[in-house]
């Protein structure tokens, strides 16, 4: 899951994305090590609240207003949770005196990360291993897989 070439030199910009699930303690340790190794000058913590696509199973049964309310509920929940996931990394980066910016976006996770990659031009992008089964990937897709397939950037999945 790692398409970054081994490179111990320090880098300019790093982006860490937060979505769906929290980074495990192992993953946080890996991020910590990565920050020590790469010593980025700038770090972007990108939090994404996912906007759910329309689902035939749900949308046929609920009225327009209720569908919107439910989607808004999912989005708000994701925003609050993902923002709290970013807090731990923020603490670490502040301790290491890395200039850190926080950004909260809403929308399709892959599209949001892709757009931020293009705008921010990070040297490395860190994504969370969401540990999805093949079934789940078929049903709801996999952010990491899709980004690795679609982008030529250095992506590390921890």
């Amino acid at each position, binding site marked *: 899951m790692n398409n970054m070439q081994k490179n111990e030199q320090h880098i300019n910009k790093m982006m860490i994305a937060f979505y*769906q*699930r*929290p980074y495990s303690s192992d993953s946080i340790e890996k991020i910590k090590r990565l920050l020590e190794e790469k010593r980025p000058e700038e770090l972007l913590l990108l939090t994404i609240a*996912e906007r*759910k696509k329309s*689902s*035939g*199973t*749900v*949308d*046929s*049964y*609920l*009225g*327009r*207003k*209720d569908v919107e*309310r*439910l989607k808004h*509920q*999912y989005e708000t*929940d*994701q925003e*609050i*949770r993902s923002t709290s996931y970013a807090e731990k990394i923020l603490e670490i980066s502040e301790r290491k005196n890395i200039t850190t910016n926080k950004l909260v976006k809403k929308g399709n996770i892959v599209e949001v990360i892709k757009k931020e990659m293009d705008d921010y031009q990070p040297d490395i992008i860190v994504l969370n291993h969401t540990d*999805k*089964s093949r*079934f*789940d990937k078929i*049903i*709801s897709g996999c952010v990491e897989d899709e980004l690795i*397939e*679609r982008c*030529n950037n250095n992506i590390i999945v921890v």
Partner: protein
Amino acid sequence: MGKTVNQNIKQRVKSKFTEKNKQKWIFILIAISLFTLISLLPNPEGLSTTGQHAIAVFAFTITLWITRPASFPMIFFFTAVLLVGTGVLTPENAFQGAGSSTIFFLLGAIILAFSLSKYNLDKRVALKFLKRFGSKPSTFLFGTVLISALLSMMMPAHGVVALLIPIILSILRAAKKEMIGTNFSKAILLSLAYGSSIGSMGTLLGGARNPLAISIYYQTTNEMVSFLDWFIAAIPIVLIMIGFVYLVLRFYYPLEQIDMDYLQNYLQKEVKKMGKISYGELKVVFFLILAFILWSLFGTIIGMATVAVFIAGLLGVSNTLNWEDVENKLPWGIIFLYAGAITLSFALSETGASSFIAQSLIQFVSVNPLLVIFVIVTLTIFLSEVMSNSAATATILPITLTIFTSLGLSAKTGMYVVALPSAFALMFIIGTPGSAMVYDTGFLKVKDFLKPGLTLNLIGIAIFMTLGLGWWKVIGLW
């Protein structure tokens, strides 16, 4: 360089789109091929040409209901067109499903449910109830199963899940530790989907397939089933299954020790925020009780739909609800899904296609009534897993009623052995809207539904074959 990368991405997106589209068209092609093949087969003895066409449209519709290349309501349009095009039904008959009394019963019941949510009466009941059960993780789990089931006897099951999800998400967020991946979060969210599905069996309000089943039964036998009849036949199964849902969830998801103080505080705060019961809520309680009384006393005389629209009218006249409230929230998809199901089952009965299928099936299965019931219950449960449970009811019920009548069994029992098990779509996230909704929270994975869902399906079959049949014998159904 940048342009090439962009072009590459566009090409990839395009190829993905085409792949999805291709799959959709393959499903449509399979449905059309089945329709053509059955239509062109030599006409078998005992089946009219229109009956054969009805079976062809039936195969076409089932294929689309399972593969879902378009949303359920859209599929109805094709079904109606084919039924008219092949001469199975006149245009008046093909579209009458959308104006049937079942649809108006549903509309009335949905409008009544809107009034509950407009005044937050449903939320008040849920919060107060959960607060009582919030002392331990295990009691809280039992509380969520129970409240999902109880509310689903008063309003549509998916509406109950949509109501409870925000409450449960707030509770999970307020916890001191991360709840994603915990057994507690999984069990609680699954309890909403499972509890509401099980509860929806209890009355005609929880699952629209229940009035649909009554309508198909009436079409076939000219006999009415009252609100109370249904409740009496279904309630023991609902109560027993509530217990099993709780036990199965505890078995597959042993609950962690969780500090429940935060949960109690949260619920306490929310209940306090709601204040005293409002005049609007009292009005809704009055209309809800009135509806239950009228359905029970006059449902079979003036029709369930008449009572439902009368109550909906009263809600409007008393300014409890206005048309804007209804317009904004009305799920048009359901109306056309059920219209399609009613039309299809009407076409199967009218053309004699359901009797033909039933007679053909009887030749293959033994005439042992218990075996026949076992096969029908199992088939209904597993068919409901892959298609809408109303679609499963509309598909299996007309055939079942004919089989039961041919075997000299009570057709009413036939109605229950299809309508009630169709609530058991518990294994897959596509089974019910409730399951899809709890999956969308991001706390559950597809596999989390499989084992408990399958176990409950098997328990359900055993319950129907023992307690169900036993109880129906006691109340004189067969």
